C-alpha cells in the first residue's frame, strides 16, 4: 500500500485531509485535529435532531446505491422496545474501489466517531464494523482506535460521561465480495454463510439478529462528524452540478492513467477535467478508450461519454453509467475490451454466493463464452447468447450480483461491438497481433 499523494489544489479534502498524517492515527492526535467534538455535540442532542441535520445536509450513501442517509436513519423507529444495531460496511471489495481502506488506514477515529454518532441517532447501543478479510492494516488501525476510544471512555457503558452506552465491535470478514451486500453481511456477522437475504423484510424492520438495523458505508459515516461540526448548509453548499448530490466524494482511480490514487472532489466535478488535470491524463502515447466510473458493477463508459460527465449521482446516470462506489477504472487503447470484460465476469462468477440459479450458472457461463471469444474461438451467435444470458441475469435474483455481472457485458457489447466481432472474424485477439 502506497503513501497517499499530495493533495491536488482542485481537490476539496474533507475526509482525506489527514491522509498520510501519522499523528492523526492516535486518539490524542485526532482530538488535536478537532476529533470527537462532533460526538460530544451529538450526545447532547436528541437523536431525531441529528437525523434531521443529516437529512438536511443531503448526504447519500457512499457504498454504491446512493440512498439518502438521513432517510435511512429515520426508518429506525424509536421506542419499539427492540435493540437497534448499526453496521458499518467496511467490506470494501468492489473492484477498483479503495477509498474506505484509506479512510480506515489514516483516520480510523473518524469511522469510530461516525459510528458512535449514527448509533446514537438510530437508538442503537451496539455498532459492528465489518472489515473485509484482506484488509489487514485497516483492521489493525481500527482495532487500535476502538481500544483507545474505550480506554478514554469515549465508548463503553458511560460514553463520554453522558451515561449512554455505545459499543463498537470490529469484525473481520473471511474474504467474500458478497458479504459487502448488506443482508449477506448480516448473515456473516451472525456466524452464518454470507448469503444475501430476501427483501422484504428490510434491515430497518428485521436485520441483524432479527432486530432493526441500519447499514452505512465507511465513507458515509466518516462524513457525519464533519456535517455535525460544520452544519448541513456547509455540506449542502458543496455541489457543483445537481443539488441532489451534495458534499465531497472520494474517487479511487486505477488502471491506465498517470496518477492513480484517491481523489476527493466536490460532487458534480467535471469528469473530463478530473481525469486529465487531477489524475494526469493517459499514459504517454496512449489515449483513453473506456472508463468504468463506479466500480466493476456499473456500465462501461466510452472515453467520449466520460469526458462529458459530471461527477455526481445524477451526472453519471446521464452519462450512461452510475456513480456506484466511486472506483474509477481507466482502460486505454492498448487494452483488449473483451479480455477486460471477461476478467470482470470471472470475478463475479468467482464471487457468486450460488443461491440463485441465474447468478450461479449465468456468471460462470458468460465468463466461459467471453474467454472463448477472447481466445478467438467465438461465433457471432455467442454475442446474442451473451446478451440473452445477461437479460436472464438482470432483475430476477435476490441481490444484484448477477445484474452487476451482466452490466459490463451488455454495455461492453453495445459500445465496443467491433472489438468482439474482430475477435470472432479474425479468430484471434487483434490487440495481441498489434503487440507482436
Amino acid at each position: 500500500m502506497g503513501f497517499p499523494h499530495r493533495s491536488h489544489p482542485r481537490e476539496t479534502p474533507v475526509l482525506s485531509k489527514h491522509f498520510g498524517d501519522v499523528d492523526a492515527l492516535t486518539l490524542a492526535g485526532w482530538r488535536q485535529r478537532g476529533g470527537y467534538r462532533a460526538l460530544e455535540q451529538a450526545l447532547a442532542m436528541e437523536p431525531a435532531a441529528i437525523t434531521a441535520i443529516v437529512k438536511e445536509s443531503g448526504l447519500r450513501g457512499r457504498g454504491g446505491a446512493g440512498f439518502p442517509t438521513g432517510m435511512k436513519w429515520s426508518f429506525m423507529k424509536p421506542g419499539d422496545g427492540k435493540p437497534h444495531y448499526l453496521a458499518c460496511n467496511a467490506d470494501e471489495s468492489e473492484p477498483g474501489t479503495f477509498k474506505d481502506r484509506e479512510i480506515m488506514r489514516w483516520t480510523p477515529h473518524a469511522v469510530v466517531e461516525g459510528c458512535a454518532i449514527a448509533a446514537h441517532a438510530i437508538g442503537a447501543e451496539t455498532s459492528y464494523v465489518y472489515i473485509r478479510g484482506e484488509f489487514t492494516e485497516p483492521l489493525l488501525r481500527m482495532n487500535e482506535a476502538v481500544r483507545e476510544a474505550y480506554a478514554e471512555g469515549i465508548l463503553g457503558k458511560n460514553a463520554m460521561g453522558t451515561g449512554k452506552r455505545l459499543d463498537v465491535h470490529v469484525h473481520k470478514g473471511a474474504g467474500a465480495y458478497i458479504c459487502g451486500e448488506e443482508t449477506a453481511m448480516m448473515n456473516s456477522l451472525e456466524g452464518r454463510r454470507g448469503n444475501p437475504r430476501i427483501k422484504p423484510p428490510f434491515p430497518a424492520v428485521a436485520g441483524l439478529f432479527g432486530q432493526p438495523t441500519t447499514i452505512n458505508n465507511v465513507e458515509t459515516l466518516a462524513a457525519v462528524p464533519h456535517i455535525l461540526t460544520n452544519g448541513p448548509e456547509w455540506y449542502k453548499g458543496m455541489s457543483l452540478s445537481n443539488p441532489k448530490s451534495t458534499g465531497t466524494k472520494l474517487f479511487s482511480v486505477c488502471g491506465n492513467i498517470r496518477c492513480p490514487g484517491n481523489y476527493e472532489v466536490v460532487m458534480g466535478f467535471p469528469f473530463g477535467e478530473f481525469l486529465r488535470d487531477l489524475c494526469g491524463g493517459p499514459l504517454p502515447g496512449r489515449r483513453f478508450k473506456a472508463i468504468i466510473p463506479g466500480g466493476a458493477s456499473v456500465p462501461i463508459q466510452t472515453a467520449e461519454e466520460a469526458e462529458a460527465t459530471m461527477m455526481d449521482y445524477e451526472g453519471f446516470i446521464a452519462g450512461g453509467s452510475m456513480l456506484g462506489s466511486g472506483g474509477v477504472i481507466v482502460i486505454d487503447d492498448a487494452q483488449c475490451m473483451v479480455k477486460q470484460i471477461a476478467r470482470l465476469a470471472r470475478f463475479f462468477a468467482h464471487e457468486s454466493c450460488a443461491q440463485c440459479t441465474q447468478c450461479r450458472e449465468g456468471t460462470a457461463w458468460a465468463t466461459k463464452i467471453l474467454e472463448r471469444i477472447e481466445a478467438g474461438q467465438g461465433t457471432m451467435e455467442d454475442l446474442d447468447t451473451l446478451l440473452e444470458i445477461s437479460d436472464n441475469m438482470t432483475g430476477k435474483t435476490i441481490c444484484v450480483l448477477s445484474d452487476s455481472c451482466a452490466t459490463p457485458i451488455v454495455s461492453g457489447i453495445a459500445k465496443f461491438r467491433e472489438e468482439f466481432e474482430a475477435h470472432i472474424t479474425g479468430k484471434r485477439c487483434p490487440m495481441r497481433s498489434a503487440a507482436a
Partner: protein
Amino acid sequence: MPDALGGSMMAEHEKMISLTIEGRPVSVPEGTSILEAAKAAGVLIPHYCYHPSLPVAGVCRMCLVDVEKAPKLAPACVTAVAEGQVVSVRTERALEARKGVLEMLLINHPLDCPICDQAGECELQDYTYQEGRQDSRYREPKRFNPVEDFGGDVVYVTNRCILCTRCVRFMDDVAHDPVLNVSERGDRAVIGKFEGQDLTHAWAANVVDLCPVGALVSKDFLNKARAWELDRSASICPNCTQGCNSIIETRENMVVRMRPRANPDVNSYFMCDYGRLNYRWINRQDRLEQPMLRIDGALAPVDWERALGAAATALRGKRAVVLASPMLSNESLFMLSRLGGRGIFRVEQGPEAPLEGVPDLALRADRAANVRGAEQMGFTRTASIPALGTDDVLILADDDLAGLDAASVGTATMIVLGTTLPAEIADHVAIALPVTNFAEEEGTFTNLRGHVQRFMQAKAPPGLARPLWYVLADLRALLNQPTAYYIASEVFAALSESNPAYAGMSYETLGLRGLATPETTAGRAS
C-alpha cells in the same frame, strides 16, 4: 418449523385476501404466498426450492410470475398476496424467465436421465418438457464432480444437483441435525457434509423424497426400477404405532419402495428410515399358501371348506385363546375379538426416534402399527403364553410364536391363521389357514393417538391366502353365527356400530387422511 400443514389449521378470524391468479378468483388468508394461493386456485406454479414443510429459501427463481403493475417479475414463493392482485403465470415475460432458469439449470446437468433413478418423477424433466427450450446453447465443457456417499441410505450424485437446498433446510430446520451445507461458491458450489458427519439421522432419508431431481438417491432403491414401471397404492406404514401415511410402490407384485404420503395430522410429509426400509418381509416367498390339516399325524394340504370345517369342530365348546399380531387390521382384530375367549398380543420393541421439527412425530418404541386398535378391541399386552389346558384352543393370528417354545402350548389345540408356518411350530399345529398380510388386503389401523386410517391393497396375495377377517366370517357361519361380510368396509361398519371408539366412522368418512377417535379428540381439546 413453518406451517407444514399447508394452511389447513388456519384460524377463522384471519383476514382473507382476494386476488386473481391466471384469471381465477381466489380468497386466501393474509400472509399466504402467491404460490400457495395459486395451489388453492388450482394453478401449479413451477418451483424447485420451495417446499411447504421447509423454511422458504427463494433461491431457484423458478417460480417467477407476473404481478400486474409490478415492474419486475415476482418470486411466487416469497411474495405475499395482496388485495386485488392480478397474477399471471404464463405471460411471455414470465415464460421467458423460467425458460432461462431451466436452461441455466441444465447447462451443467449431465442429462443422464436414461440411467437416473429420478427419471419419470423428476421435476427438472417435467418442467423442461413443459416450459423449457428444445435445445441448449451451452457449448462449453460441463462441470464434473464425483458421486459421494452421504451415509445412511443416501447417495449424492453431485452433477445432477440444482442446489435448491431443500436437503440442507430439512436437516437444519426439521431434523435439527445440521449435517449438510452448501460448500464453495459460484458454479463450484455443491451440497457438502460437515467434516466427520454422516446422514445417519433416523429420518435422514426424507432428503431423497425432498430432492426434486436425481441428486439425492436411495441406496436401497438404486437402479432397482424405473418410476413408470411402478404401481402405487395409498397405505399406512406398518412398522410402528405412529402410523405414517405411506405409498407402497410395487413392481411385478413385489414391493420395491415405501415413501411417505403427506398427512398434516399424522406425519406431515415424512417417514422415518426404519419404516421406509423395513418392507422386505412383505415380499417373503416362504408363505403359507394353502390350508393345511393334520391327517393321520401329518399336515396335509386341503381345500378351504374342509379346513374351515375342521376349525369349527375344534372350536365348538372350547375356550379360544387368541394370540394376535398387532400388525393385523382393525377388521381382523374385531372378528377375532368376536370369537369370545381371551385375546392377547406381543409387540416388538425398539428405540424411539423423534423428528424434532414436527410435533408428536417419532419412530415409536412399539414396532407394530395397530397396538392401539388391538387394545381397543380388548386384546391385552403379554410377553408369554398363559397356561393352557385340553379345553383350550390357541389361535395364532399371524403370530408365529417366534422366541417362545411351541411345546409349552401343551395339550391345547393349536390353530394357525398365518402368513407363514415356521418349521418350529408346524409339528404342534392342528390346522393352518393361510391369510394375507396388510399389503395384500384393504383395512384400517388405529395409531397411538387414536387416529383411524385406511390402507389399500398394494399387491396380490399368494396362493389361496385370504384376509383374516374373511376367514373368520366363514368360520362364524359354520359356528351358526352367520355374518355376511364380503368386503372390508362391511366389517368396519359392524365395528363402528359395536365399538364407541369407532362410532360414526365409515370408509367414506375416513377417506385417505383418516379420523381421530372421539376420545382422542376430547383429549386434545382439553
